[in-house]
């Protein structure tokens, strides 16, 4: 499903060029659950952003579902993010003044579909938050907020869910909850990519890709 070929990403900070990824080649099949691990600065977030069409590679080719997406326009990338990907961030990134339900509806607003309330409600129920639909993020615990974010990622039926340190701000109980939700979603057929620096979490996936200094240094299946 995801085919990365020699992906390079260079950030320009004024006159200095900072390479974040140097020639990453990688394939992820549909239905996989993958962890990308590495120290901070290893380029794992950059890799996730490129896979999720939040960012474009400087060099290299990215084929998603057989189509080259590395040269798409901003609007086409926005469309991809809306239809194909769901994002879960470490800091949840919910709209603070909107209810859980409105937050989950957000991707539907931009896809212009019907039955927004019904679909959003279903997504919330899938993460066990049906009864808290009317609550604002500030009225929810960290774990609950992250579940709202997962519901938002789910609502447009994405092919791939990308999670960037999804448990970084959570206690162990919530972390276990979130991980089990991801595993459940994966069993339901959604491909999941989790970026983390915690081995505990990575070991609960089936494949671990290790990045160091912008390169893949190991890629192994978990027994």
């Amino acid at each position, binding site marked *: 499903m995801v085919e990365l070929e020699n992906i390079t990403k260079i950030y320009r900070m004024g006159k200095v060029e900072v390479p974040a990824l140097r020639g990453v080649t990688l394939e992820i099949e549909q239905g996989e659950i993958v962890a990308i691990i590495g120290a901070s600065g290893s380029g794992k977030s950059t890799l996730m952003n490129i896979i999720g069409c939040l*960012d474009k590679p400087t060099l290299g080719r990215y084929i998603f579902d057989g189509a080259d997406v590395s040269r798409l326009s901003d*609007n086409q990338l*926005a469309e991809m*993010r*809306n239809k194909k990907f769901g*994002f879960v961030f470490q800091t949840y*990134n919910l*709209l603070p003044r909107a209810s859980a339900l409105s937050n989950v509806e957000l991707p539907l607003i931009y896809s212009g579909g019907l039955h927004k309330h019904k679909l959003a409600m279903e997504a919330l129920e899938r993460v066990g938050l049906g009864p808290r639909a009317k609550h604002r993020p500030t009225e929810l615990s960290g774990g609950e907020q992250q579940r709202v974010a997962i519901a*938002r990622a789910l609502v*447009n039926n994405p092919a791939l869910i990308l999670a960037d340190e999804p448990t970084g701000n959570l206690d162990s109980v919530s972390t276990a909850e979130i991980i089990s939700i991801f595993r459940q979603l994966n069993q339901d057929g959604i491909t999941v990519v989790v970026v983390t620096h915690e081995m505990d979490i990575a070991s609960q996936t089936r494949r671990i890709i290790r990045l160091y200094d912008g390169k893949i240094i190991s890629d192994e299946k978990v027994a």
Partner: protein
Amino acid sequence: MKFIESFIIAIRSLSANKLRSVLTMLGIIIGVGAVIAIMTGGAGMENYVTSTLEDLGTDILYVQPVNPDAPGAAGMAPGFAIPTLTLDDAEAIARIPSVLGVAPTNENFVELTFGNETIASVIEGTTPEFQDVGNYEMASGQFISERNVASRDNVVVLGSDTAKDLFGDEDPVGQNVKIKGKRFTVIGVLAAKGSAMFGFSLDEMVVVPITTYQTRLFTLRTSSGEDAVQSIGVLVSGPEVMDDVTADIETTLRKRHRIDEDEKDDFSIVSMEQMIGVFTDITGVVSIFLAAIASIGLLVASIGIMNIMLVSVTERTREIGIRKAVGAKRRDILLQFLIEAAALSLVGGAAGIAFGWTLALAISFIAGLAGFPLQATLSPLHVIIAVGVSLFIGLVSGMYPAVRAARLNPIDALHYE
């Protein structure tokens, strides 16, 4: 994304910052309010002047002496004007076809005394046709007659207010009043007209035969020593003959005054229509000028909106990042902020119209108390202009912040602290 959804998002974020939104709108409210107050006040002023002049009659020409040597309109000014018109001129004009009546008129300020009561009044020395030309009705008694004029009788017709001030409820007809120490017999009282001309009510004047006025009250002579006439009102049969009559009067008077072909007229002919036109032009120019000054307020308001929208974009960078991450396109973000700015200034504009209208009503009320019955008029055109201008201001001042928001890179926006 549908327009209506952008609109809902915009309204929500405006109401989330109520105080800030209201303060930003205040600029637009004051700006639009001032412009509307001036425009509606100006329209009211124009209506007032027009209707006042129309009350005096629209089928009327006025012939007045002019100093041909004075530059431009200065020749008509009292200091420059030299008396050139006479009663014979008036009679000659009366013989022109389509002229229904002529009223040679001299006027001045006098004091009127009855018993111990003395009041100031405007005195008109004129002929019987003054009644037709000025469209006056009698309340009691009769107007001055040809005989009164021929025999220079000391008779006077009182305006309705003058009669009331001097005699109260008593019937003045047959009573004697003193004007400049001379005794005049009241022969009639005019019906109230109700209209005022620049604070001077037409009901406050008194009328005497022009011959009496010339010989007994105020002497004014032409250079050749004849009794002079200050102005001649000419009633014509209708607006369609205005131009012909004007030309005829000019020919007649030039001949009578022996003016050579290359010399300028020593008189001027003004129609009521022209006077209305001049006043309408003046009030129009003045209100446009004032509105232009007031719209500086709108410029300031527009800067205020742009400023607050820039702050809003910065504050909501993360929100923009989130929206982009879940699939918002540039256009969606642009629209959201543009609508927000437009809504801000449209609501402000609507409140401004209400504010300006109230202000205009208050001004016309105060003017009414001071004796100027102004009727502030809010025309649909003014409302459309105000709404259009508000919308325009919102879009123009919202454009730059909205473009900035739309151009944000989603990753940078998401990680903005």
